[in-house]
């Protein structure tokens, strides 16, 4: 595919607000997990919580969109000059030529949950009587409203692959000439649905998650918001490039991955083919690495059999927790930072490597020249995505 430029990007997570906070956390291998103080009933586990969201309401002109998820979106949009970049793109191309393509797993269901906790005569309480937030499209609707954009506006909600897949939606629309730029990314916030939901499936660890550790025993949930602005690659800019993507389905089970990683491998092959690269060209892979028993087993085997020892790989979920529908964008941003800073993130949380892991795993932070990198995101329902990025000038 013709490479596209990522002309602006940002993320906000338990590691902090914006790129510098994330780069510093990665450089010092300092994670952001803390004991669960979020759920409305006690649940002994660790979470990746964004500090201060509850103290920062939306500006009055956006009050109809008020909820934790849109607050986090608003916070994330205002880091790293991202909002300015979107306004400039709108001015350059026109409101109908900029798409809003965002991934989320649960959008603002936290607000719907809250309504059910304090019903008034069996109905939504008056302050939450706002249909725009009780729908999966709440986030994308809010972002399109904030920037007054009138191009294609789509929510992708494929669980944990959501905000990776939006990069593919953007590439197709730009290549077909439907739009000139796309705001991609996603936001998911902590809520009872996911905390008690993953707990009901016995997938949540009582301790901080340990991706790829022999003793791992489940995930830590987190929240995050992140965005990227994608445009056609100009000749002389130094923006990183989005060079390929793969999407595939396991066709195996709703909540466990294919035992041989079939869908994950198809997505990987698709991404390499679209990018016109080979496995040996890949310097770093940001793994899905949830620290669930099955995911890590399957993914470790896939990496071990597909890549040379020179390719470095790690999961960053020990830093941020599993941010579900926001994992795709958060980890894409961390991958771009690895490329920018020449730092391979540690596979934080693991102390005893699972013997299934190959020599590719970076257990500690490493210095490396990252020219080409991948990011994996796999979701419930067997939904797999793989993104490929390159530094400017690397790919002909």
């Amino acid at each position, binding site marked *: 595919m013709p490479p596209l430029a990522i002309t602006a990007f940002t993320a906000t997570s338990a590691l902090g607000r914006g790129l510098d906070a994330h780069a510093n956390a990665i450089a010092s291998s300092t994670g952001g997990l803390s004991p669960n103080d979020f759920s*409305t*009933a006690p649940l002994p586990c660790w979470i990746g919580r964004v500090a201060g969201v509850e103290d920062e309401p939306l500006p009055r002109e956006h009050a109809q969109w008020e909820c934790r998820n849109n607050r986090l979106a608003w916070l994330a949009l205002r880091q790293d000059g991202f909002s300015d970049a979107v306004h400039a793109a709108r001015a350059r191309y026109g*409101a109908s030529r900029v798409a809003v393509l965002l991934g989320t*797993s649960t959008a603002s*269901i936290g607000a*719907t*949950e809250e*309504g*059910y*906790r304090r019903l008034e005569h069996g*109905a*939504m309480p008056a302050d939450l*009587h*706002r*249909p*725009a937030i*009780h*729908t*999966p*499209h709440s986030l*994308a*609707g809010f972002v*399109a409203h904030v920037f007054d954009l*009138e*191009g*294609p*506006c*789509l*929510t*992708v*909600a494929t*669980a944990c692959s959501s905000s990776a*897949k939006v990069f*593919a*939606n953007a*590439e*197709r*629309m730009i290549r*077909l000439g*439907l739009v000139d730029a796309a705001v991609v990314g996603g936001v998911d916030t902590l809520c009872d*649905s996911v905390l*008690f*939901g*993953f707990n*009901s*499936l016995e997938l949540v660890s009582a301790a901080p998650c340990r991706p790829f550790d022999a003793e791992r025993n489940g995930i830590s949930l987190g929240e995050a918001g992140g965005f990227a602005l994608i445009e056609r690659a100009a000749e002389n800019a130094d923006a990183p490039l989005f060079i390929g993507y793969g*999407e*595939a*389905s*396991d*066709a*195996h089970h*709703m909540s466990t991955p294919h035992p041989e990683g079939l*869908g994950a491998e*198809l997505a990987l092959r698709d991404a390499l083919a679209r990018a016109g690269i080979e496995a040996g060209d890949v310097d770093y892979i940001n793994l899905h690495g949830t620290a669930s028993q099955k995911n890590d087993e399957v993914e470790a085997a896939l990496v071990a059999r597909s890549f040379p020892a020179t390719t470095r790989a790690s999961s960053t979920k020990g830093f941020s927790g599993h941010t579900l529908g926001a994992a795709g964008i958060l980890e894409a941003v961390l991958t771009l930072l690895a490329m920018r800073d020449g730092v391979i993130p540690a596979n934080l949380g693991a102390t005893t490597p699972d013997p299934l892991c190959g020599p590719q795993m970076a257990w500690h932070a490493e210095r490396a020249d990252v020219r080409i990198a991948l990011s994996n995101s796999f*979701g*419930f*329902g*067997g*939904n797999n995505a793989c993104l490929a990025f390159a530094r400017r000038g690397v790919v002909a």
Partner: protein
Amino acid sequence: MSEALTVWVKGIGLWAPGTPTWHAFREVATAEATPGEAERPLADVLPANERRRAPESVLLAAAAAGQAVAMSGHSAATLPCVFASAHGDQVITDYMCATLATAPAELSPTKFHNSVHNAPAGYWTIATHCHAASSAVSGGEESFGAGLLEAASQAIADDRDVLLASYDIAGTGPLGSMTSTTGPFASALVLSPRPDGAAIRLDITPEPGNSGREPSGDAWMDGVAASNPSAAAVPLFRAIAAARPAALRVAAARGLDLHIDLGAAP
């Protein structure tokens, strides 16, 4: 302004209360029949044990998708698919929120994994052994048009036939009063970038602005069309049923319509 996206319709599926198949809907649309009683959607693509247990949203989406794929003559195993829905399975969302408000630790794990917006896409790919790309999207009130734009884009960009299924069910509980959805409806299309003898061609052009929906004058059709966001597909499917060239607009986002020129083979 963009060039038109041109796709050919290889398969059609539909489920509405009283017309459980595209064939039944077409007969009503052409005044050869009247709507019957609402029946349970027949999702015969799913294995029998899954059919018994599957949530309403999954049955509905799979019923329409199954019809469209059968008409196309394709194997679903190799067909990329896009499942569009404004609100997903509202019965499960209502259950989740009600349970979390009273006894969160008692949440059903099956209900939880069925609550993801991509549950129909997941069940569909598992039942049909489909390893192609599958997606689950929402576009709020404009979900049908947003899904149509995405599926047509994918078909042309990747030069592959793509399945689009769009579904919504009636809301229930406090959530239902927020979503203003009064009944179930699903439609499906297999869209192709190549004619291959297909009878129906769609030229889809995004245009700024929303023209709004005009009532057709047919009370039953208008009632179905107003029942949920996915039922915004009704005017397009009526036009397909009429088998004459037609032009119509379908909203794809706030401030964005799709102008659709429908060409039917003579």
